[in-house]
């Protein structure tokens, strides 16, 4: 966690604006910090896509919920449910839960639903792999790919999921089918927007310097230097990776 006030102090020091009221919290620091957070999120996205970092680096933002799949082995989320979700980090088919006995008893519903909040995710020995629209079909018959339907019993069953969205809902299909089975979904949540300097940012503390330097660049935008503000460069990713590894 990073205190917003610490970033503001860093920025004031860099701007040599201590004691000055030229930059105000509401109009300068907080908007710049929020935009810097967006920028850092973009850097994280690129680092995730290049397998340079994993979502565990943002453990403060991870939330795991249990769902019961529909009778056609799918999960449906409404747009409201995913409003604050940055990305779905992992799907754990048939996890161990606490208590072990399902409460309430599993239904045979045609639609998916959130599982009893009294049950906690304990772990499991399977993770589903995210597939693309293109390779979803290609991998179905390949017994060595996750999500194949050739090996559907025994310990070698390996799951995959395919997300696809419309404007209002997001559907996730899990294969091989575990109709009405329970699965855990690990969400990476967006960090909440900063309202004032009393807040905290749920990023690792090592990102503090990166965040404050990016925020400074947004303030400097007003001063005319905006040449590289909106692009995510390899240097950004390298810097973030080095900070977190």
């Amino acid at each position: 966690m990073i205190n917003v006030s610490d970033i503001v102090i860093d920025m004031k020091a860099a701007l040599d604006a201590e004691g000055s009221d030229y930059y105000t919290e509401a109009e300068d620091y907080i908007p710049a910090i929020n935009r810097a957070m967006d920028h850092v999120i973009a850097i994280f996205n690129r680092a995730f896509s290049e397998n340079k970092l994993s979502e565990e680096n943002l453990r403060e933002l991870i939330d795991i919920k249990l769902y019961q799949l529909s009778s056609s082995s799918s999960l449906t989320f409404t747009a409201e449910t995913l409003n604050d979700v940055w990305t779905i980090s992992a799907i754990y088919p048939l996890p161990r839960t606490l208590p072990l006995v399902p409460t309430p008893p599993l239904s045979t519903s045609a639609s998916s639903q959130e599982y009893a909040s009294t049950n906690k995710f304990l772990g499991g020995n399977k993770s589903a792999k995210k597939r693309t629209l293109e390779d979803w079909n290609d991998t179905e018959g390949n017994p060595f790919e996750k999500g194949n339907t050739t090996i559907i019993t025994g310990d070698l069953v390996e799951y995959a999921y395919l997300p696809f969205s419309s404007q209002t809902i997001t559907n996730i299909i899990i294969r091989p089918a575990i109709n009405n089975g329970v699965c855990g979904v690990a969400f990476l949540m967006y960090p909440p927007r900063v309202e004032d300097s009393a807040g905290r940012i749920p990023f690792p503390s090592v990102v503090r310097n990166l965040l404050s330097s990016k925020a400074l660049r947004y303030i400097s935008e007003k001063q005319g230097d905006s040449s590289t503000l909106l692009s995510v460069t390899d240097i950004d990713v390298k810097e973030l990776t080095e900070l977190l590894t």
Partner: protein
Amino acid sequence: MNTYRYVANDIRTSLKQIYDDAEISLSLVVYWMHIFGDALKKQHIEKYSSGAFLSIFRSVPVERDVDANMPYPFVELPQGIYDYDLDKGIEYITYPYAYTRNREQMVGHIKFTRTTFNALERLNMREEERPSPSNPYFVRSGERVYLVGVERVNLLTVEMGLSTTFDVTAAISLDDPFDFPEHLLPLLRRQILEMGRFVLMVPDNLRNDGTSQDIEGTVPSTRPMGTALQQPQQVDQNAV
């Protein structure tokens, strides 16, 4: 005995030491264990006369193919077997010649002798070798084993002792014992790792990075086969 869990995870973990981003599914490692294991196990059984890897199938159903105009009853091999010389992958086939009164237990067996379709004609010419219920033969043709000499016997099942291969399509529990000579595990492990490293090396070199240009360091790092180890000596253009 080692289980699939230990052997497969050992190999996968070892491969991941080098290629940590590689996707190596456990089903792929188990498949490699089976195909490499078959090659080594076949040699082991050939070399040592031991019952350690003999699979016994007590009641293999006997079928009759009336449409194919084949007079002999046959059995389908219940599992793949090693293809040894003289069909030695079939250790024995017997059928009971007597049951207890309630037909629950067999009390005597007659063993089938191996032959070929080619030799059958000659066998029929000699009284002491002629196929009969007391002197039956078997002939293998693909996955079928024809039973010669028992055409007039109401034979329902036979017992088979087979040197079976691994069944790659069977549902595996990782805690099942891996039916393989323990002392050959280091060899199996090494063979799979060598092959795995070769397989994993290729896609890394041909990584699709979204550009049409080679990036320095991603070109194949192994020496193409047939090329010399030594670099050709630099020729001094100025030398005469």
